[in-house]
C-alpha cells in the first residue's frame, strides 16, 4: 500500500473523497487472525469520536486490553470457542487468546483496508514510501476467527453475529472453504444476514488458480475479489557462469553473497529423495550443497520454507524456479538467505545449463524496488478462476484488485516469512494472495459508502464492477499471468477496480433481499433451505416463473444447456440512474461469432433516480464444434459514463 493508492488513482483524486465525518463514520469489520494494535497503521491521530452508531467492544485477553483500541481501531473481539471445542484449549504460550494477531495476516488485511497514513514504511527498504489503507479515515473493527488450527465456521458465524450487532458497515473476509451449496456454507449464510442489514461483504476469491472452477465465496450477495499485479517489482537477476542472465524477484536483505560466482547445484541432484528437487525438509544432502547456491523447484511446501531448508543444509543461496503450475508469475518473498524466484521458462533454461555444465556457477544480483512495470495489472496466476461451480449463471469473480507483492502492516510476534526460525521483526511485510486484494475492495467500498451512504451493498458493488477496466491505456486487453495471453471474465470478472470512476457510475444494477429470495426460488431451493439461509419462512409462488438469468447482477453468465448447439437465452436487467438525467445507448462486443446478442430496448432515457429495464437475448446457432467458452461485453453509455458489464457464454 505504498503503491496501490497511486496505482488506483486515489492520490490524484483525494478531493473527491470526503475528509470529514462521512468518511470516518464508515466501519470496516475484518474477520481474520486479529490485529497488532501497536502498528502505526492504527494510529488515530486526527480522527474524531467513535461513531455513535457503534456498539462494538475491545475485548480483553492475552496481551490485549481495552486500552489497545482507539479512535481508529474501535473494536476488537475474538472467537475461539469453536476452535477450542474441536482442537482443545488455545495454547497461550503459542498464540494469544485475545484479538492480538500472532500471525500477521489480520494486521496486513486490516491495514490494507483502512490503515492510517504511515510515512517511511518499507520492508528492509523494499517498497519504501508512505503506506496507507484504501479508506484512511474509516474505522477498523477486528474479529479474530482464525487460529493456528484454522478458521472454524462456528467462530466465523459468531463473528458475523457480533459484527451485525456492532453495526459494522463493510465486512472483509480473506478466507474461504470448499465449494458447498449456499445453504451449507456458513460464510454465505452469515453474509446473507449481513447484506440484509445493508452491510457489504467482500471476500477473497481464493488462490487455487489458474485451474477453472476454482473459486470460493461465489454467493451473489458476496463481492468476490480476484487478484492482479501492481506496476512494481523487486528484481534479483540470476547471472550464470556462461554469461546468460535471467530476471527473478527477491525481498532478501542481509549478508551479501561474495562478489565472485558461486558453485551452483540442482536440488534434485543433491538429494536421495525422489522429490529432492522440491527442497522439502530433510531431503537435501548437506555435503552436496554446502557453500553453494541451490536451485529448487516450487511445489508441495511453502516457498519460504524451501529457503529455510536450503539455508539449514549449509547452502549460501537459492534460486527458486516456477513450474507449469505457476508459469511466469513472480511472487517475491523475504527469504532467510539470498534467493531469487524465477519463472518457468527461466527455470528451464537455468536447469539446462546446470545439466550440461560440469562446474556450473551463478551470482544473484539484487536490484531493489522498481516501479512503472508494464503491462500492469496482470491477473495473478494463483487467483481463482470461473466458471462458478455452484451457479454457473452468476459470473464470478466479480472483479480484481491489487493482490501481488502488497506491503502492509505486520505483527511483531512473527517474522516476515512466518517461519518459527525467523527471528526478524518488521513493521510492514510484503505478501501476496487474494487475501490482499479483498481488503483493497473492502476499503474502496467503504470510500464509496462514505460518498453515497444511501446506496445498498449491491449498488456499491455494481458501481465498482461497471466502472472496472478490462484494457490497458494502450487499448490492449488485460493479460493473464498464467498464460501471458489476454485474460477473460472467468479470470478478471468485470475487470480491475477503478475507484475514482466508481464514485460516479451513472447507472447501477441494484438488488434487494427480495431479489435474492427470488434467486433462491430459481435455484429450486426448498422452503427449509431458504429458511436456513435467509432466516425466514418464505414460500416461492407456485405459478411464478423464477429465473436465475433475471437476477439483476452486473454481469452476464450465459449458459446454453447441453443437447444442441443452438438455443436462445434471455437475461433481463433493471438499471437505476444514480447520475443526472440522460440517454444511454447500448453497445455489445463479443468474440462469439455463432452467438447473436441483441439488447431491447437499445436506448434508455432515464431521469434522475429512475429505473428502467431491458432484455438481452443470446441466440446460439453454433455447431457442436463451436461449443467453447466465449466472452463479450455490454456497455451502456450516455457519452460521459460507460457502464460496462462482462459477458461469458458457455455450453
Amino acid at each position, binding site marked *: 500500500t505504498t503503491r496501490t493508492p497511486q496505482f488506483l488513482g486515489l492520490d490524484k483524486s483525494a478531493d473527491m473523497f470526503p475528509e470529514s465525518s462521512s468518511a470516518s463514520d464508515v466501519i470496516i469489520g475484518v474477520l481474520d487472525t486479529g490485529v497488532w494494535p501497536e502498528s502505526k497503521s492504527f494510529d488515530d491521530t486526527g480522527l474524531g469520536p467513535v461513531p455513535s452508531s457503534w456498539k462494538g467492544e475491545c475485548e480483553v485477553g492475552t496481551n490485549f486490553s481495552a486500552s489497545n483500541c482507539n479512535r481508529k481501531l474501535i473494536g476488537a473481539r475474538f472467537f475461539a470457542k*469453536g476452535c477450542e471445542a474441536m482442537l482443545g484449549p488455545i495454547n497461550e504460550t503459542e498464540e494469544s487468546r485475545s484479538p492480538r494477531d500472532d500471525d500477521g495476516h489480520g494486521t496486513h488485511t486490516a491495514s490494507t483496508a483502512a490503515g492510517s497514513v504511515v510515512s517511511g514504511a518499507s520492508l528492509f527498504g523494499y517498497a519504501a514510501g508512505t503506506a496507507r489503507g484504501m479508506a484512511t479515515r474509516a474505522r477498523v473493527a477486528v474479529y479474530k476467527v482464525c487460529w493456528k488450527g484454522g478458521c472454524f465456521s462456528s467462530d466465523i*458465524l459468531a463473528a458475523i453475529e457480533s459484527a451485525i450487532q456492532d453495526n459494522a458497515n463493510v465486512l472483509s473476509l480473506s478466507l474461504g*472453504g470448499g465449494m458447498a451449496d449456499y445453504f451449507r456454507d456458513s460464510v454465505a449464510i*452469515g453474509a446473507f*444476514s449481513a447484506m440484509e442489514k445493508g452491510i457489504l461483504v467482500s471476500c477473497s476469491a481464493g488462490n487455487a488458480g489458474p485451474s477453472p472452477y476454482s473459486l470460493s465465496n461465489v454467493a451473489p450477495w458476496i463481492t468476490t475479489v480476484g487478484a492482479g499485479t501492481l506496476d512494481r517489482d523487486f528484481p534479483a537477476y540470476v547471472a550464470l557462469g556462461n554469461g546468460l542472465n535471467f530476471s527473478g524477484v527477491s525481498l532478501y536483505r542481509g549478508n551479501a553473497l561474495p562478489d565472485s560466482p558461486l558453485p551452483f547445484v540442482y536440488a534434485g541432484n543433491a538429494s536421495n529423495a525422489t522429490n529432492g528437487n522440491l527442497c522439502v525438509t530433510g531431503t537435501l544432502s548437506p555435503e552436496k550443497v554446502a557453500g553453494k547456491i541451490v536451485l529448487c523447484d516450487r511445489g508441495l511446501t511453502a516457498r519460504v520454507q524451501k529457503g529455510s531448508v536450503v539455508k539449514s543444509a549449509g547452502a549460501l543461496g537459492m534460486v527458486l524456479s516456477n513450474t507449469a503450475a505457476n508459469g511466469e508469475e513472480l511472487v517475491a518473498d523475504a527469504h532467510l538467505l539470498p534467493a531469487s524466484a524465477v519463472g518457468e521458462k527461466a527455470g528451464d533454461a537455468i536447469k539446462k545449463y546446470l545439466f550440461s555444465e560440469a562446474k556450473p556457477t551463478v551470482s544473484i544480483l539484487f536490484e531493489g524496488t522498481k516501479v512503472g512495470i508494464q503491462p500492469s495489472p496482470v491477473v495473478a496466476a494463483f487467483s481463482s478462476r470461473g466458471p462458478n461451480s455452484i451457479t454457473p449463471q452468476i459470473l464470478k469473480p466479480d472483479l480484481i484488485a491489487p493482490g501481488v507483492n502488497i506491503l502492509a502492516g505486520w505483527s511483531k510476534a512473527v517474522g516476515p516469512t512466518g517461519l518459527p526460525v525467523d527471528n526478524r521483526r518488521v513493521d510492514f511485510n510484503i505478501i501476496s494472495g487474494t487475501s490482499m486484494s479483498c481488503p483493497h475492495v473492502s476499503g474502496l467500498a467503504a470510500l464509496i459508502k462514505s460518498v453515497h451512504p444511501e446506496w445498498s451493498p449491491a449498488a456499491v458493488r455494481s458501481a465498482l464492477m461497471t466502472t472496472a477496466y478490462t484494457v490497458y491505456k494502450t487499448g490492449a486487453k488485460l493479460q493473464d499471468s498464467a498464460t501471458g495471453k489476454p485474460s477473460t471474465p472467468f479470470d478478471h470478472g468485470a475487470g480491475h477496480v477503478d475507484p475514482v470512476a466508481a464514485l460516479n457510475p451513472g447507472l447501477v444494477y441494484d438488488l434487494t433481499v427480495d431479489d435474492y429470495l427470488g434467486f433462491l426460488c430459481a435455484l429450486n431451493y426448498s422452503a427449509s433451505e431458504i429458511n436456513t439461509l435467509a432466516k425466514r419462512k418464505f414460500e416461492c409462488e407456485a405459478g411464478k416463473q423464477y429465473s436465475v438469468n433475471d437476477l439483476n447482477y452486473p454481469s452476464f453468465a450465459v449458459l446454453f444447456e447441453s443437447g444442441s448447439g443452438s438455443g436462445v437465452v434471455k437475461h433481463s436487467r433493471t438499471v437505476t440512474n444514480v447520475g443526472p438525467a440522460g440517454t444511454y445507448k447500448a453497445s455489445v462486443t463479443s468474440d462469439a461469432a455463432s452467438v447473436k446478442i441483441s439488447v431491447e430496448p437499445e436506448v434508455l432515457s432515464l431521469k434522475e433516480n429512475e429505473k428502467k429495464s431491458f432484455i438481452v437475448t443470446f441466440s446460439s446457432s453454433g455447431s457442436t464444434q463451436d461449443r467453447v467458452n466465449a466472452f463479450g461485453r455490454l456497455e451502456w453509455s450516455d457519452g460521459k459514463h460507460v457502464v460496462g458489464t462482462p459477458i461469458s457464454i458457455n455450453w
Partner: protein
Amino acid sequence: AQAAQPERGTYIVHVAKSEMPQSFEHHTLWYESSLKSVSDSAEMIYTYDNAIHGYATRLTAEEARLLESQSGILAVLPEMRYELH
C-alpha cells in the same frame, strides 16, 4: 470395561424460529430444550440470532441425526474449517 464413547463433532443447528412453541418465553430456552432431548451432556458453544437462527454444539452423529428430525430444526450442519487466502 468402558465402552468406547461415540465421537462428538461440532454442529451448527439451524432453527426455524417462527416455529417456536408458545410455551417457551425465549428462543434460547426452546433451543436448550430441543438439545436436551437428544443429549444430556451437550452444551451450547454459541447461540446465534443475527447471522443465523440457531446455535453451535457438540454432538455425536446419531444425536445430530435425531436433532435434525425434530420439528422446527431446519438443518444440523457439521463444523467446516476455512483457510486464509
